[in-house]
């Protein structure tokens, strides 16, 4: 059970997240939908602990003042104040927006860097699993990450996150800029990951339609507030949701 309670984030005086609470039970796929600047990425940064690093660096430089409130719990343990690498050690892994592949390292090296927390045998096992999940990566193992296409990079980013043995996988806009064919590969892959490994997934997107078939529960963010939440069935019949996020 992964739980965030009453998260509030301010960039200077601007409210980026307003009292957002979120729950994700083990083995669930939870969607977070919202338009640009709704606070999706901010939410992901807070959940993965990256926000603390951003905040510290800004403070050190005398830059933007960032305030973060609220608590985060993983299986009952309060993980709010943990650094990103400690979060990762507990299995909370963020696969960031725009993928952030290690562009100068080969595909295989990207995966190996992701395996920093794994033992040798786990690494071997996970590499096989990832290549099974996304067979296209097999053809490019020696290729530099930066020379892959956007869709391949996204597969690599998810694969890299899997190498770290996640318990909670945070996918920040994994479909950004992908063709419908690649979107389907990524979405199916996500479902397979959950089904096979029981990994919980929190996935953000602007546009809900491609992700909707695989989610169990969803939150809708608007201007930093969670305006609506419910199971897939509840949301799919809601007229507001339909017009805003399905383009119907």
């Amino acid at each position, binding site marked *: 059970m992964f739980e965030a309670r009453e998260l509030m984030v301010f960039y200077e005086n601007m409210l980026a997240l307003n009292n957002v609470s979120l729950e994700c039970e083990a083995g669930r796929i939870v969607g977070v939908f919202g338009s640009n600047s709704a606070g999706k990425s901010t939410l992901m940064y807070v959940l993965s602990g990256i926000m603390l690093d951003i905040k510290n660096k800004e403070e050190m430089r005398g830059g933007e003042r960032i305030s973060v409130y609220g608590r985060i719990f993983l299986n009952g343990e309060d993980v709010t104040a943990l650094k990103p690498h400690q979060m*990762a050690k507990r299995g909370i892994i963020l696969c*960031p927006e725009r993928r952030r592949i*290690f562009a100068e390292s080969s595909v295989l090296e990207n995966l190996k860097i992701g395996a920093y*927390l794994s033992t040798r045998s786990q690494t071997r096992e996970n590499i096989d699993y990832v290549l099974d999940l996304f067979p296209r990566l097999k053809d490019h193992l020696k290729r530099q990450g930066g020379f892959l296409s956007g869709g391949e990079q996204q597969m690599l980013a998810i694969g890299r996150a899997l190498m770290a043995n996640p318990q909670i996988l945070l996918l920040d806009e994994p479909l950004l800029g992908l063709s419908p064919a690649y979107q389907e590969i990524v979405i199916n892959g996500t479902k397979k990951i959950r089904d096979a490994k029981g990994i919980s997934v929190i996935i953000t997107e602007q546009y809900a339609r491609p992700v909707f078939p695989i989610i169990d529960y969803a939150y809708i963010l608007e201007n930093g507030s969670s305006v609506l939440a419910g199971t897939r069935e509840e949301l799919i019949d809601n007229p507001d949701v339909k017009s805003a996020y399905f383009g119907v």
Partner: protein
Amino acid sequence: MEILVYGIINSIILSLIALGFTLVYSIARVPNFAHGALYITTGYTAWLCMNKLVGFPYPLAIVLSIGITAAIGALIYRFILIRIRGMEISEIIATYAIGLAILEGLRWGGLRGMTFTLPPFVPGSMDILGVNIDYQRLIIGGAGILIFLLLYLFTHFNRVGLALRGIAQDERAAMMLGIDSDMTAIASLAIGSGLAGFAAILLLPLGNIIVEAGYNVLIFAVAVCVIGGLGSWGGTILASFIIGFAQILTERFLSSHYTMVVALLAIVITLLVKPSGIFGKQKELEERV
């Protein structure tokens, strides 16, 4: 022939000097201007171990002094640089100040004159391709190539080495995968300082341990890195060979007086023609959406 042999040796010397600087910059993004000071510190520590203290055997003194220098590097990060991480100007000022403090402190502490020397590992010389060359320079060549190989293997096949490269490319993305950026920065400073020490132990037997050598080493390291492109490994080695041969040629046809000018001139030309250096980070791998 002489130009070729000595050019290669001189290039390897330069890349040994620059290697630690490049490593620290590429991983921790810290331009370590204390590099030259750490270089001299190693030589002086080794000298102290052998002559002033108990009179350690040479190999032990070498290992000990490199270890101490690596520890100093790690401590510099842990207690000073960690507070100003990410602010390049402050990092330059801080590391330069540390370097000055160490070097001038050593001078004040008695490191003056020509009495401080380390013996060559193996005295004597031999002929290669008709060129007379001493064993120390041969060892430098061999050890230089060996250290490149070791570093390559470390950064491509070792778990920690791969983590260092991850941090070097995208610090935050690496953090998300469980890599502790402060630990890797400490490790990179320790390794980089250790490399400075390693270079010192190899190179100082060719001359005297003098404070000025610390400044020269820093200038050479910066020159090589600027020309090769900051943080680029391939660039560092290529630039070492360019400057290395340029220096040997000037020495041969002009006078050894001008070797330092070559390095400085190369910096100026690079900054005028291609400010990012030969292999400087271009935007060619721009993200694809």
